[in-house]
């Protein structure tokens, strides 16, 4: 259904913009991407009182139309580009009533684009509580637009806002704020002529932003560039002049419309909380506690739904086996598609829990304090205060953590965080480590309380954190910054989280992951299934003939016969052949071709290693019985009779799994977040190199 009117929602960060968006649209919303960029585009439908339908587009929060990040650069291009499917008929500028002065800067910029605009004065209840009085009628008269006081949290004023949207004019009625032409008179009139516009502020914005605007043709951009040179235009000086002029105008507007008491009430409560939460001792202790709690919860709260999902898929597989005739089609569907699907869906609980936490931390304002406290340490290694949460989340799973790096505005900091997050020991490595450690590290105590196996595992976790820090530090010198790093950030007043937003964020992130990363993962699963269930020539047929001979069938039970067949099939499949092919390469790090098969099959997900080992060594029962896998591996012998899994081989394997990018989901999500295959490719390459080098080192030293 087509909407009758399109409304863009614009405002500063922390003004309750997404709460207002949710209040206006309810459940009628969807998330997509703005064309060509990875910026979430939230649109929704709002039913207006006059029966018309308004499409609401939520634009990223920004302090100004001059963008500081890629998210923010969307705002001007959506507002300014004519006749697209996003061009708004009306702009609702949402202002924080407790901080009108800074909020009005963006309003005056937007108003000067001369698109019809109305103001939603949000948090009016908080302002009143803090003793701030606002003469909305006078404000509305001075600005020339309707000003609707709302409280998005309490759902107050929403109907009035909808009413105002439906009454809104088709022509812009707002008062001029500043004399835009005086900023660069000749340049502005030349650009106005060049691009055929009579809006001086649009022309001035083109002068500033023409290089990054996608809707300008290259030759148009070149001509604007030439005009700038002709009039010796200096972008930053012009911005400074404009901003000062705008604040002069804002001071005039606020002079007789707003009365603020000396110290706002809210502010002082926030101050008291800050004294504790950013305290030099308690601050870090509390932060550590929050992280531990988050980390524990990602493990604990998601393990039950995860096993439910796994059980559900086992049930579906069984059902399909029963219904479908045996054959390649059933195998493809069950072992390829359904298995791949389960590999995707099993991540949902972890993604949902991590994003619930992140959304709460951001909503309350605590995230900004974490950044504030951690910035100095993180900056030293090329990261950012905001990198802390993705890195810690990486202990659970790199997939949601990489999705959460969007909160990092600085491009270089964000890229480095994405590049190093998969190094952190995620939960999928845990079964591999526990299997191998239990195999070669004796289970006894040293120095009374330290268990050797526990120490080895702790060592692996510490190693991962250390390697992430070192790689980040190296990348600081390798990557070129696109923008100057800076840290000018609002510390918002503490607020209670909005549970609706938390739920929305859990739902949206899970959906985005399933829809976008899911495709790649399922494709990889199907390819791996083909590789491990088909073999070259008539090898498979020969296996079948060999084991159907009566003398073999008679001597073995059907169960053990099936196990021996599947082992031999895997050995003779394309994956097995590939294992043989890569054997010369992995020989120096101590792996034989059987381990090679496991390396190939566990590319889809690291934990598959255990299952593949079980198949290769024809484990009785299923792969869940980790002790039986261990027994078989312990007794595995090389052709010369020596054991395969020595200390050196096991540690070399652990090093390999610590560093190698053995995770199709992460590759897919890195592509999704960077929109450029070179990033996941570079990441895969450097991690494989690290894996091979460290495995080689460890194998050579321990042998």
């Amino acid at each position, binding site marked *: 259904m087509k909407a009758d009117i399109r409304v863009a929602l614009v405002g500063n960060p922390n003004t309750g913009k997404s709460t207002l968006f949710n209040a206006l649209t309810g459940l009628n919303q969807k998330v997509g991407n703005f064309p060509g960029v990875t910026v979430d585009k939230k649109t929704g439908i709002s039913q207006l009182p006059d029966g018309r339908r308004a499409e609401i587009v939520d634009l990223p929060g920004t*302090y*100004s139309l*001059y963008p*500081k990040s890629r998210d923010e650069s969307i705002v001007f291009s959506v507002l300014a580009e004519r006749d697209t499917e996003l061009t708004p008929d009306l702009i609702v500028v949402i202002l924080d009533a*407790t*901080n009108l*002065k*800074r909020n009005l*800067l963006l309003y005056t910029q937007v108003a000067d684009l001369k698109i019809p605009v109305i103001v939603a004065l949000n948090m009016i209840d908080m302002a009143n509580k803090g003793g701030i009085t606002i003469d909305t009628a006078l404000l509305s008269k001075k600005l020339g637009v309707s000003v609707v006081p709302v409280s998005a949290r309490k759902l107050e004023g929403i109907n009035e806002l909808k009413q105002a949207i439906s009454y809104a004019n088709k022509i812009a009625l707002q008062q001029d704020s500043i004399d835009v032409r005086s900023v660069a008179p000749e340049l502005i009139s030349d650009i106005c002529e060049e691009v055929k516009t009579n809006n001086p502020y649009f022309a001035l914005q083109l002068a500033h932003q023409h290089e990054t605007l996608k809707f300008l043709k290259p030759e148009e951009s070149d001509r604007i560039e030439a005009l700038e040179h002709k009039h010796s235009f200096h972008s*930053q*000086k012009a*911005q*400074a002049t404009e*901003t*000062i002029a705008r*604040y002069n105008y804002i001071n005039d507007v606020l002079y007789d419309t707003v009365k*603020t008491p000396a110290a*706002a009430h809210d*502010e002082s409560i*926030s*101050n008291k909380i*800050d*004294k504790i939460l*950013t*305290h*030099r*001792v308690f*601050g*870090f202790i509390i932060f550590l506690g929050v992280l531990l709690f988050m980390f524990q919860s990602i493990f604990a709260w998601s393990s039950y739904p995860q096993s439910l999902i796994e059980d559900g898929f086992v049930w579906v597989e069984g059902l399909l086996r029963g219904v479908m005739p045996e054959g390649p089609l059933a195998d493809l569907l069950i072992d390829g598609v359904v298995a791949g699907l389960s590999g995707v869906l099993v991540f949902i609980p972890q993604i949902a829990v991590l994003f619930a936490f992140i959304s709460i931390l951001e909503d309350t304002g605590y995230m*900004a304090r974490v950044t*504030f*406290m951690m*910035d*100095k*340490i993180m900056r030293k290694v090329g990261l950012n205060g905001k990198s802390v949460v993705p890195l810690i989340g990486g202990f659970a799973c790199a997939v949601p953590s990489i999705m959460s790096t969007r909160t990092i505005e600085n491009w270089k900091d964000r890229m480095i965080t994405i590049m190093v997050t998969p190094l952190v020991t995620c939960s999928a490595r845990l079964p591999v480590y526990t299997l191998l450690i239990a195999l070669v590290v004796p289970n006894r105590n040293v120095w009374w309380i330290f268990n050797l196996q526990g120490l080895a595992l702790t060592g692996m976790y510490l190693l991962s954190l250390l390697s992430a820090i070192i790689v980040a530090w190296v990348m600081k010198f390798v990557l070129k910054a696109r923008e*100057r790093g*800076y*840290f*000018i*950030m*609002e*510390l*918002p*007043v503490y607020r209670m989280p909005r549970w609706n937003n938390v739920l929305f964020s859990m739902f949206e992130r899970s959906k985005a992951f399933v829809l976008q990363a899911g495709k790649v993962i399922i494709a990889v699963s199907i390819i791996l299934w083909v590789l491990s269930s088909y073999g070259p020539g008539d090898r498979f047929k020969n296996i079948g003939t060999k084991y159907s001979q009566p003398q073999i069938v008679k001597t073995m039970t059907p169960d053990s016969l099936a196990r021996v067949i599947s082992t031999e099939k895997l050995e003779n499949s394309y994956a097995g052949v590939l294992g043989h092919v890569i054997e010369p390469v992995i020989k120096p790090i101590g792996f034989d071709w059987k381990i090679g098969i496991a390396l190939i099959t566990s590319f889809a997900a690291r934990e598959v290693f255990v299952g593949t080992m079980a198949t290769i060594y024809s484990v009785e029962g299923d792969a869940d019985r980790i002790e039986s896998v261990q027994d078989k591996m312990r007794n595995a012998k090389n052709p010369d009779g020596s054991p395969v899994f020595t200390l050196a081989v096991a540690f070399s394997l652990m090093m390999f799994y610590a560093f190698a990018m053995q995770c199709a989901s992460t590759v897919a999500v890195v592509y999704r977040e960077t929109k450029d295959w070179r990033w996941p490719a570079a990441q895969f390459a450097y991690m494989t190199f690290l894996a091979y080098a460290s495995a080689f080192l460890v194998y050579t030293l321990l042998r």
Partner: protein
Amino acid sequence: MTLSQLEVGETGIVKEFTDLEMSVKLMEMGCLPGETVKVSRIAPLGDPIAIHVSGYQLSLRKFEASTIILK
């Protein structure tokens, strides 16, 4: 005197900036010449700092604060 030299609790009035690029960002955030700024707190590791300006709290690194000259 620059903003980075203020102790916690001290106030000053912004006079001018030494870095044009930084000044554009600071002014957009309401930190303009003539505004009163107060240092609310310093991060536990000594950097960045949090200031009170234009009715809200802003955090910035010491280096960035050193580009703000006070009256």
